C-alpha cells in the first residue's frame, strides 16, 4: 500500500472516529425520515451532508495535508522520502480525506438508494459520477492551492488554510452551478429551466454528457496540477509540456463557445474565427494575471533566467519559464494571429495591440512591486498599483475633464488610432526595464555603484 496513504489511514480512520461517524449519520438520517421538516427525507439530508463532509470539511483536510506537514515541521522529511510525486499526491489527497470519504460513502449509499427508487438507475449513476467529481475537484483544488502557497513559502497560518479551503469551495460552487444548468430537476439554489444542449465549435451536444466530460477533463487537469506542484516541492523539474498542453486544451475548449459571443452588440461584426481567437487570447491573458499572482516571484530565479538567456542557454531557460510567462507569450501569439486575421479593421487592431501592451505592462508591474517589497506583501503592493492605474488615476483624470488622457491607463480608442497601443507598449517597456533593474542583489548594486 502507498505508505503516505497508509500513514493517513492510521491517523484518520481510527475505530473510535469511524464508530462516531456511523452513529452520527444514522441518527441524522433517522431524524430526517421521521420529521420531514427542513429536508424532504434521508436522501436530501444525505446530499447536504455529503457536501458538508466531503466538500467543505474534505477540502479543509486536503489543504491541511501539506500545510499541516509544513507547520509541524515534518515536510522536509517527506520531501526526502523515496515516494514519487504521484504517489505522494494521491496518498495525501485521498489519505488525508479518508475519514471524509468514509462519511461521504455512507451518504452516497443513501443518496443512491433514494435516487434509484425515485428517478431510476441511470439518473442515480449519473448523479454518483457528479458527486464523486465535485468531491475530488473541491479537494484537489484546495490541495493545489496549498501546494502553490507552499512553493511561495506562504503556507503556515490558519487563515492560509481557510483561503486554500475557500479555493476548493469556489471550485465546487462553479461545478455545482454549471451542473445545475443541465439538471432536469432544476437547481436547488436557482430554480430555472435546464439547458438541453450546448453548442461548442458549432456543434450541438447533449448538455449532461458534455458537462460530465468537461468535469472529468477539469478534474484530470486539477489532479495534474497537483502532481506538477508536488514535483516542484520534491525538487523535480517539470518542463513545459504539461503546462503547454493545458494552455492548448483551455484555448481550444474556450474558443469553442464562440456562439455565446455572437449576441454581443460590440462583437457582432467579428466573424467566428476572430471571436474564437479573441476568446482564446482573453483566456490566456486571464491565466497570465492569475498565475502571476499565484506563482512565487523569486528574485534569484529571475536572475538565473536572465543570466541563462544572456549566455544563450535557451534550452534550460525556456524549460524554467514560469506559468505566467508562457501564458503571456500564448496571449501575445494568439493576439498577433488575431491582428493578422482582422486585416482591414484598424480600430480593432489598435484595441488588440493596446490590450497586449497593457497585459505586458501589468505583468512587469507585478514583478516590480514584488522586487520593491522588502519581505512579503509584494502582491498586495501590485494590486494597489494596478488599482491606481485602472481606477484611481483614471477617476482623477476624468474628474479634471482630461478624458483624452485616459488612453494612458487602459485600452481605449484614441485619436490618432495608434496612440493607445503606442502608449501601452511604451509603458510596458518602461515597467519591464524597471523590473529587470530591480532584480540585482543589493550588495551587487552597491559594488557596481561609483565610489
Amino acid at each position, binding site marked *: 500500500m502507498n*505508505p*503516505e496513504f*497508509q*500513514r493517513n489511514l*492510521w*491517523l484518520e480512520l481510527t475505530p473510535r472516529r469511524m464508530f462516531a461517524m456511523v452513529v452520527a449519520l444514522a441518527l441524522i438520517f433517522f431524524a430526517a425520515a421521521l420529521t420531514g421538516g427542513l429536508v424532504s427525507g434521508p436522501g436530501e439530508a444525505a446530499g447536504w451532508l455529503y457536501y458538508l463532509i466531503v466538500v467543505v470539511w474534505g477540502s479543509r483536510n486536503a489543504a491541511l495535508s501539506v500545510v499541516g*506537514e509544513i507547520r*509541524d*515541521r*515534518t515536510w*522536509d*522529511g*517527506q*520531501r*526526502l*522520502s*523515496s*515516494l514519487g510525486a504521484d504517489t505522494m499526491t494521491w496518498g495525501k489527497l485521498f489519505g488525508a480525506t479518508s475519514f471524509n470519504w468514509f462519511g461521504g460513502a455512507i451518504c452516497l449509499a443513501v443518496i443512491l438508494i433514494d435516487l434509484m427508487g425515485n428517478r431510476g438507475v441511470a439518473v442515480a449513476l449519473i448523479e454518483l459520477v457528479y458527486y464523486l467529481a465535485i468531491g475530488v475537484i473541491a479537494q484537489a483544488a484546495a490541495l493545489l492551492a496549498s501546494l502553490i502557497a507552499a512553493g511561495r513559502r506562504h503556507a503556515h497560518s490558519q487563515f492560509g488554510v481557510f483561503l486554500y479551503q475557500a479555493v476548493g469551495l469556489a471550485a465546487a460552487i462553479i461545478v455545482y452551478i454549471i451542473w445545475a444548468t443541465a439538471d432536469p430537476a432544476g437547481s436547488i439554489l436557482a430554480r430555472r429551466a435546464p439547458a438541453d444542449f450546448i453548442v461548442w465549435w458549432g456543434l450541438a451536444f447533449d448538455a449532461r454528457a458534455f458537462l460530465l466530460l468537461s468535469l472529468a477533463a477539469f478534474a484530470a487537469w486539477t489532479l495534474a496540477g497537483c502532481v506538477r506542484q508536488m514535483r516542484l516541492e*520534491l*525538487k*523535480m523539474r517539470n518542463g513545459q509540456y504539461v503546462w503547454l498542453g493545458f494552455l492548448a486544451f483551455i484555448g481550444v475548449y474556450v474558443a469553442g463557445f464562440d456562439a455565446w459571443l455572437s449576441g454581443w452588440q460590440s462583437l457582432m461584426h467579428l466573424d467566428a474565427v476572430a471571436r474564437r481567437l479573441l476568446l482564446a487570447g482573453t483566456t490566456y491573458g486571464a491565466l497570465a494575471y492569475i498565475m502571476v499572482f499565484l506563482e512565487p516571484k*523569486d*528574485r*534569484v530565479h529571475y*536572475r*538565473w533566467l536572465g543570466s541563462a538567456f544572456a549566455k544563450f542557454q535557451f534550452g534550460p531557460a525556456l524549460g524554467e519559464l514560469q506559468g505566467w510567462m508562457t501564458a503571456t507569450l500564448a496571449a501575445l501569439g494568439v493576439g498577433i494571429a488575431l491582428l493578422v486575421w482582422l486585416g482591414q479593421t484598424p480600430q480593432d487592431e489598435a484595441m488588440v495591440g493596446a490590450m497586449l501592451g497593457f497585459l505586458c505592462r501589468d505583468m512587469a508591474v507585478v514583478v516590480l512591486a514584488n522586487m520593491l517589497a*522588502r519581505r512579503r506583501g509584494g502582491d498586495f503592493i501590485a494590486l494597489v498599483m494596478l488599482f491606481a492605474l485602472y481606477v484611481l488615476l483614471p477617476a482623477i483624470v476624468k474628474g479634471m475633464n482630461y478624458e483624452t488622457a485616459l488612453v494612458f491607463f487602459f485600452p481605449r480608442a484614441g485619436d490618432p488610432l495608434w496612440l493607445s497601443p503606442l502608449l501601452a507598449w511604451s509603458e510596458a517597456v518602461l515597467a519591464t526595464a524597471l523590473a529587470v533593474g530591480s532584480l540585482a*542583489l*543589493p*550588495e551587487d548594486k552597491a559594488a557596481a555603484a561609483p565610489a
Partner: protein
Amino acid sequence: MIEVRDLVYEYPSARALKGVSLHVAPATITALVGPNGAGKTTLLRCLAALEPPYSGSVTIGGLDTKQAPRAIHARLGYLPDFYGLYDALSVRRALTYTARSRGIAAALVAAAVEKAAGRVGLTDRLEARAGELSRGLRQRLAIAQAIVHEPAVLMLDEPAAGLDPQARRDLSQLLLTLKDGGMTLIISSHILAELEDYCSEMIIIEDGLIVGGRAIKVRDVERPRYMLEIATARSDLREFLSARAGVDVIEADGYHALLTHTKNALARAKLIRDLLAAGFEVSSFGESTKTLEDAYFKQVGKG
C-alpha cells in the same frame, strides 16, 4: 563521497553562500561549525538537495543535486535542527512509515524498524506514542527515522540538543558505529565540545565562506593526539620523542609535548616505559581533549 564546487546560494536580499568548495571523504565524520547565520543550515540544505544552488555544483556519490535530487534524497538521512514528529503515531508506526517511504521492501521493514529502534535505545518504547515521549526520547526517535534506511550519507543539524549526558555519550558511540559501518556523516553544531568525541574533520563556515578554504583534520581516530607532561624540564624531549617509532610530534617545549600516536594501548605503554627508562619524569600522559576548539580558534584567529 561529497564534492562541492564554487557553491553560491542566494536569498532574495543576500548571498548566503559565496563560492563554497569542499570535499568530504567516505566513512568520515565531519563537523560543520560556525556562528549563527554563517550559512551552516543553508549549506546542509544544499547538500541534502533541498535547496538548489544559484551556481556551482554539489555531487554526492557522483550524483549532481540539480540533475538527480531524488536519487540523492534516497541516499540521505537528514535531521534538521527543528524537526517534527507524528505525535499521534506510535514509535513503531512512525519508523515503519519512514522505512516504507524510504523505499525499504515491505518484508524487510519490521527488521529495519527493530534495528533502528535498538540503535537509539527505543526498543522498549516501540508502542508508545511519539507525542508521549520526553524531549530526549523524541530526539532519539528523530535520529532513528534518519537512519532507518541505512543511508550512505547522514546529515544531522544539532543532533545532541535535548539529550542528557548519557544519551549524548550513546549518540557519540552510535555515530562512530555508523561511521565504522561505512556511513559518511556531517554534523552541524554550535557546541564544539559535543563534536569532540566523534568528529575527525572540521569545516568552519563564516559569512558564507569556508574559513581557510578547506576542511581541517582535527582528529584521527586511529592516531589520536596525546598531551605529555613531565615534572622536570628536558631540552631533548622533542628529539627523544621524534626518534620513537610511530610518534609524530606536533609541538613541544621543555615540559610538554603534543603528539600523535597509535591508539594501541600496548604501544602507548611501551612509549611510557621508554620515557621513564630514559629518565623523563612523566607526570601526565593522556588524550588531548581540546583539539577541535583549538583548531577552530586557530583558524578563525581568536582565543
